[in-house]
């Protein structure tokens, strides 16, 4: 009885155009991108007196994110924005929300196919596309062929899996002649990235032409190792963070692609309000623009996180 009562509330609230409570289920508020995202989100929401926001962080724990969802459903918020830790594991939670009548907009990280039926749509960057863009950048830098090593994020995470897949698929589709010499994890940790890069250099030396590092921090870290070893490699990162764009300007890495948490968060908030007011989203998948960044245009991208 309780569940249905709370489910009816938001509809009523929306109809009167009154106060909205928009919730964000974050994977881990300690991750810089997410932290920046939350900052931008809260700032944007603060400008609108009719919007309250609730932010819950799952602290990197899949089970906690499911619990967070239950909490949000119990609170009877109007819209849930979710950046899922795991695109598969989130599906039951999406289902529960949809059964409770709370609309969910996936942001920053997309749920798997099974989950699509329970969400209103998606807004944010696209990890898979980022992998593709990275392959394109690499191809540009290496003239379509060369030996490559990959420094992955945490194994098993969908971000890692998608960026890998995007890179490989693009390589195939565009017929880039890359040879993957080795692929190892750095768990998103620049310290580990340095160790991995050092070991790659020990193992392959100047055979390596390019490095695909799955985020900017590890890319920059790898860049420093390459520089210190007196070698030259084309390093491609992901994310367009302050550190990444600076590394491009410093000549440490070749390129990355922008992923702005502000754009991401503001678009998410805008869509959330639209959803609450019963409006249609422009597209089902609303990918934010992710322009390539290289030395040529790095000055236009100071980085936000």
């Amino acid at each position, binding site marked *: 009885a309780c569940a249905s009562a709370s489910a009816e509330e938001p509809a009523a609230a929306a109809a009167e155009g009154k106060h909205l409570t928009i919730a964000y289920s974050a994977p881990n508020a300690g991750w810089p991108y997410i932290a*920046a995202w939350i*900052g931008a989100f809260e700032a944007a929401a603060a400008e609108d007196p009719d919007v309250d926001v609730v932010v819950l962080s799952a602290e990197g724990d899949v089970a906690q994110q499911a619990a967070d969802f239950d909490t949000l459903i119990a609170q009877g918020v109007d819209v849930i924005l979710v950046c899922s830790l795991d695109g598969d594991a989130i599906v039951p939670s999406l289902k529960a929300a949809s059964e409770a009548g709370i609309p969910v907009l996936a942001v920053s990280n997309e749920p798997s196919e099974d989950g699509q039926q329970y969400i209103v749509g998606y807004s944010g960057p696209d990890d898979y596309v980022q992998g593709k863009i990275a392959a394109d950048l690499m191809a540009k830098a290496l003239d379509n062929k060369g030996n490559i090593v990959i420094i992955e994020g945490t194994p098993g995470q969908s971000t890692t899996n998608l960026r890998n897949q995007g890179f490989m698929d693009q390589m195939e589709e565009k017929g880039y002649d890359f040879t993957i010499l080795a692929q190892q994890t750095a768990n998103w940790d*620049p310290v580990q990235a340095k160790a991995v890069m050092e*070991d790659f250099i*020990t193992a392959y030396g100047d055979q390596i032409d390019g490095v695909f590092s799955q985020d900017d921090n590890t890319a920059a870290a790898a860049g420093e190792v390459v520089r210190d070893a007196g070698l030259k490699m084309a390093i491609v990162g992901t994310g367009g963070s302050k550190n990444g764009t600076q590394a491009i300007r410093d000549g440490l890495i070749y390129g990355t692609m922008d992923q702005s948490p502000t754009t991401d968060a503001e678009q998410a908030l805008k869509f959330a309000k639209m959803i609450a007011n019963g409006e249609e989203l422009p597209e089902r998948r609303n990918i934010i623009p992710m322009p390539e960044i290289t030395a040529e245009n790095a000055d236009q991208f100071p980085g936000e996180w």
Partner: protein
Amino acid sequence: MNESNIKKPNAVASFFRNLSGQTIWMVFAVLVITISLMEPKFISSSNILNVLRQVSIVGLISLGMTVVLIGGNFDLSTGAILTLAAVVSVNIGPENGPLTALAIIIPLLLGVFVGLLNGLLVGLLKANSIIVTVGTQFMVAGATLIYTGGQHVWVWSPTQFYEAISGGYLMGIPNPIFIFLILTVITQIILKRTSFGRYVYALGNNDDASRLMGIKTNLIRMSTYVFSGFTAAAAGILLASRVKNLDPTIGLGYEFQALTAVVLGGTKTSGGEGRIYNTLAGVLTLGIISNSMTLLNISYNLQLLIRGLILLTAVAIDAKRNQSVAR
């Protein structure tokens, strides 16, 4: 094997005999030989230096962890201390001389302070050290996040000195290795050659008996935590200097790596027993495992399996060899 771990006088000769009696050094030697056969690049001098540099951060934490463990306690807050120290160090912005000094001194003081807090709580309350240090870990990690707002911190143009902490060389050897090895030797001297070190062992053996012999057990216990806080903070500075751009959760989990190395080195979790040189071997063993896996490009999944099995084998051998010793 059943003699005490005190260093006997006239040690140089017995040093190597001593080492050969330590399981972890044997495991280490076997691994080194096996890996060298599989991948000759492994024993190149540059790779050796790489490994040493890579382990120096975890190695530093392990030193403090060993001392705390010998005293009969745990310190699970070191990962959080390391993170706090690294973040604060970078955030101070060591871009000129005085700032560089601050970026080194303040994090160390913070580490010492958290260590003091740990020591006070564990000692005065006689509370279980695991739960206490998990408590301080939460507090320190949370405080670090609040301090940074969850954002990256970085320093674009640190002074040469700051860069050199982890990037420089002394006589062709990277500085972090020097820092780590010197602190290892100092820790060894503290543990084996000073009365403080002896009291730490006594404490871990039998708290009550130690007190009855006039040892100020609370003070000693607190000092072990201060030392651990110090080494964790030192590791944080090393890390900060190595990447200069960090996210505020970067070091969480390092405490488990260090703990693994320490226990792999034969230090008893029940206290009273342990040797710093074996911790060194534990640190190196973990270091060469991940180094060689990368060199051989073994997939991460398989790495985990192999690492787990090596760990289990090593401790199983150690346990078997120790079995004749009375409880």
